[in-house]
């Protein structure tokens, strides 16, 4: 198991390096170089050359990539030449807002979606199951920014229950929590439906397996069978999907961050790409890729902890 964790971590590091290298190459394939964008149309070739040297763009591409990784290892993500401050500082400033939003969005989806799936699977074809089925599909089909916009209109603008914009940066944690409700609702709603459907399907499959009838024949109580014997198997696909989902959400929350004008990683990437702010793009992508890899690695390890069959195959 320890060896497995080490292997997964090593694999994760390789994935991060590959992703960053690929991104580096892709940025350079995009027309428009940052020095020109920054200095404007009237910049002299000397000024542009000086700017490129400051940003490290004058060196050959492989060298740039190697030196980038070298600096990352010492905790230096480079300097954001537009804002004249370290990239790491900019990212650390907004990262908590994104992490809290993703955690809140996924948590409420998990807390509602999984029990809904379990209920549907144990009461198949009941009216609750049918209602949950129809609304789940609707939740999945609705794009998060549409949900965000309507939630904003209804609960913030019309009813005034929640603040309209911002992350509550200047307020205390209760104020920030108040600001979090609508964005978290918007990013999590689709996942409620998705998890409910997923858990229902895999639970029904497991409930039909022979070992469930075996456990019933030995008189085990319904709840023991359901929660200790069945859910533990049925939750495995959901664990994998949640790992990937958290990773995807890290940059996917950009809609919510823009609609609700929240500071965050997604919005930072968006702005950085618009500005061709290379150091910032590299820094934010490195951080999101790392978090993505951490999330999927943790979900793989959790799967192995839950299922001894996976453990023995390692």
């Amino acid at each position, binding site marked *: 198991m320890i060896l497995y964790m080490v292997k997964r971590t090593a694999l994760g590091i390789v994935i991060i390096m590959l992703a960053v290298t690929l991104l580096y190459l892709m940025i350079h394939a995009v027309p428009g170089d940052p020095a020109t964008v920054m200095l404007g149309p009237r910049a002299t070739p000397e000024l542009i050359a000086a700017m490129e040297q400051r940003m490290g763009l004058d060196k050959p591409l492989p060298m740039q990539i190697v030196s980038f990784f070298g600096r990352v290892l010492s905790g230096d993500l480079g300097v954001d030449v537009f804002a004249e401050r370290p990239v790491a500082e900019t990212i650390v400033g907004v990262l908590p807002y994104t992490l809290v939003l993703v955690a809140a969005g996924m948590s409420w989806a998990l807390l509602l979606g999984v029990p809904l799936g379990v209920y549907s699977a144990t009461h198949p074809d009941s009216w609750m199951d049918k209602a949950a089925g129809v609304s789940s599909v609707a939740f999945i089909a609705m794009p998060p920014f549409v949900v965000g916009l309507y939630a904003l209109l209804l609960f913030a603008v019309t009813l005034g229950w929640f603040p309209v914009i911002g992350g509550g940066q200047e307020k205390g944690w209760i104020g920030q929590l108040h600001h979090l409700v609508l964005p978290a609702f918007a990013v999590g709603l689709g996942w409620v439906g998705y998890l409910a459907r997923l858990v229902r399907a895999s639970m029904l499959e497991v409930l039909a*397996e*022979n*070992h469930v*009838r*075996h*456990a*019933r*024949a*030995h*008189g*085990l*109580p*319904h709840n*023991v069978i359901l929660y*200790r*014997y069945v859910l*533990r*198997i049925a939750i495995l696909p959901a664990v994998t999907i949640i790992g990937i989902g958290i990773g995807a959400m890290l940059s996917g929350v950009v809609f919510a961050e823009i609609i609700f004008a929240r500071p965050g990683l997604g919005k930072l990437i968006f702005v950085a790409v618009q500005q061709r702010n290379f150091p910032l793009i590299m820094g934010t992508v490195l951080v999101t890729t790392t978090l993505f890899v951490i999330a999927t690695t943790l979900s793989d390890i959790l799967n192995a902890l*839950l*299922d*001894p*069959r996976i453990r*023995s195959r390692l």
Partner: protein
Amino acid sequence: MVEPTGNILQVRNLSVEFKARKRVIKALRDVSLDVPTGKIVGVVGESGCGKSTLILAIMRLLAPNAAITGGEVHFGGRDLLKVPEADMQSLRGTDISMIFQDPLTSLNPVVSIGRQLIDVQYRDRSSLDSKRQRAIQALSQVGIPDPAARMDAYPHEFSGGMRQRIAIAMTIIEEPRLLIADEPTTALDATLEVQIIHELKELQRRYQCSILFVSHHLGVVADLCDYVIVMYAGEVVEQGSVRDLFHDVRHPYTEKLMECDPARIVRSTERSFPTIPGDLPDLVDLPSGCIFGARCHRALQQCAAEAPDTRTVAPGHAVACHLY
């Protein structure tokens, strides 16, 4: 508890129907049988004859699309078909226990075998440690080597034969009065089959429990059982002691079944595999008359017109056939 009739289990006129796509499959019709206290009763018949449906109906573990449409199942002075589900659940795993056909899928794959053996003792108020000891003892009784060290192992770490032994260890812990075994050796190879049959005999001898043993392996039934019930297409066609059935066959279907037993084919010089001509009758639209009539080599004229009653041809030996 002494059963007034000397039978631990009495099934009377049990009928079960399945609903599938608006069709009603009459899977069991008027099945009656007795399991005498302390005896082993075998149920034989080809695939699809309703053996598994019968025992799942007794255990009240039928799939939701199945309905018990009539009959009684008497156990311990009560009709199991009338007791509330909560009482039924408390009977399962204490008074009645069960071993299933496929040991590879009947244990939970993500729960350690020790935990599963402890879980079946959940009604017991004793300490976790004593439950653990009980589980280890049961494992050693069924011949699992080094049982204490294997408690934390998971089912996939055991072979099929070992897993069936673990399933038997569960029933040993429960010390049931009635054990229902659904083809417990079908998924195992011949050597393991002999060993598992030996374990079942041991269990019966040591705990004096009664066993309802379902199989399509006639050799095993002859070896293990005291009484045999022959089923065909959801009906009991013949029942009696092992001696009656193997030395004084009456029903034409039983006769044919005996001919098809692979053990006999090996002994004969013929290399061809004897089969019973024809197919199982349609259980949605039942034929009139005898259920076996269409395939019977000794059918009389009346067989197609009216269904035969069950007649006692010798003490304890009953046949549903117009020939007797």
